[in-house]
């Protein structure tokens, strides 16, 4: 890969050049040859942005809310990167990315950058490249990076592995109080939003969620010095009602993380998750590729079939993990 080209992209990102930032994201999406080297350069410049996840079921009003929130931050002079994820087709791998339809209010503003991503079969509400796109925005000097997940169900909670602050958007009439006791989506919220508060049933939904939070609080209090009291905000995002309270809650959560030392805890969690993911998604395929190319795969596999070597033993040999390999050798002796 052309070193000068990587340098040009790196410099352009730092300068906030929209065309270059867009190209860098495409590099990451395409797994372009220069992407890894670019991220190596860029990673040291990251770690400044507040990463905010917005999640909730399809049609809850996430995109509309993102538009309103970003508009407020932009008006405060902040630079905002938005990653809007929609699902890819399991059949054709194509996608229709429609989140931007609701974001015309901020689209085109100088200090706002919106990028639509297809999840490309990645489960959990994000796309494979989301973490790296966050780095591009972070490295470009964005103050806030908003990740809008795919419309999720009860258990797509990956956004909490990537965001400092998770906003869960619920809608009225999505079930009774028992739903609020369940594990999953409702557990990961740092801020709750009940959108479409003008709809009948909204008052009930707010009450049920408040009860759930009260129950959780009473069992939580004991072992935490300064617990975060999860705010619940009701909004009508389409009419810009209540959105300022959401922004205030998210800002307060950032202050809370910073002042309590939990920011570092979340950073550690983010880093851990990312390294673990890379071990699975990047290292394992490389180990396989190397074994197939070197011929080691073809040498060892017949031994597994002949019961001279266990599948685990072969896997450990391929990954050069010594314990089982030496154990096997000892047994042979």
């Amino acid at each position: 890969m052309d070193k000068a080209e990587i340098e040009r992209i790196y410099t352009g990102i730092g300068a906030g050049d929209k065309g270059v930032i867009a190209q860098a994201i495409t590099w990451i999406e395409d797994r372009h040859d220069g992407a890894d080297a670019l991220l190596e350069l860029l990673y040291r410049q990251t770690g400044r942005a507040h990463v905010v996840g917005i999640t909730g079921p399809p049609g809850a009003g996430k995109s509309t809310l993102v538009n309103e929130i970003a508009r407020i931050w932009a008006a405060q002079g902040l630079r905002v990167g938005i990653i809007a994820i929609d699902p890819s087709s399991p059949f054709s791998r194509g996608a229709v990315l429609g989140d931007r339809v609701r974001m015309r209010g901020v689209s085109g503003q100088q200090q706002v950058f919106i990028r639509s991503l297809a999840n490309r079969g990645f489960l959990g509400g994000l796309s494979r490249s989301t973490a790296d796109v966050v780095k591009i925005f972070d490295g470009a000097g964005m103050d806030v990076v908003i990740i809008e997940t795919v419309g999720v169900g009860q258990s797509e909670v990956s956004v909490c592995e990537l965001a400092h602050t998770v906003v869960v958007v619920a809608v009225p009439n999505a079930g009774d109080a028992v739903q609020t006791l369940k594990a999953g989506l409702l557990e990961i919220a740092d801020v709750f939003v009940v959108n479409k508060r003008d709809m009948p049933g909204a008052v009930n939904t707010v009450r049920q969620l408040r009860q759930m939070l009260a129950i959780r609080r009473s069992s939580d209090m004991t072992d935490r010095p300064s617990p975060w009291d999860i705010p619940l905000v009701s909004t009508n995002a389409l009419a810009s009602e209540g959105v300022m309270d959401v922004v205030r809650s998210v800002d307060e959560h950032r202050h809370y993380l910073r002042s309590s030392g939990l920011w570092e805890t979340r950073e550690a969690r983010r880093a851990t998750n990312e390294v673990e993911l890379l071990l699975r998604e990047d290292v394992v395929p490389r180990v396989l590729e190397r074994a197939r190319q070197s011929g080691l795969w073809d040498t060892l596999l017949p031994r597994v079939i002949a019961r001279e070597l266990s599948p685990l033993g072969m896997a450990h040999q391929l990954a050069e993990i010594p314990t089982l390999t030496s154990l096997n050798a000892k047994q042979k002796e």
Partner: protein
Amino acid sequence: MASHTIRVLLCKTTMESHDRGVRFLATKLRDAGMEVIYLNFLEPVEVVDTAIEEDVDVIGLSSSVEGHLAVLETVTRQLQMRGHRRVLVMVGGVIPEEDIAPLQAMGVQGVFGPGSYVSDIIQFIHDHVPARV
């Protein structure tokens, strides 16, 4: 390992309600494995802003009530001014025969009037989008 998925920006260029065609095309391009950034309606400058941020390979504009010459004039000029000549610009909808030549002169490569086949549009995109990886 590296591979590129074709990304297409689709929208109408005037604020009107004839969006059945462009929505139909959006699902068909999706079924053809492309990623479609779909917007109802955009001003010409917004088209270019969006195309740059989304780094699309194709801009497909739908026009059913006239005005396409002025819109495409702005879009193609802005793309050139801002150094994004690489993107493939197409227009579809109700485009009179006599507009085709002026559109092509502006740099609009694909013009798909009434009676066009989706399969032709997909083929056209595959033929005209340069390889990126």
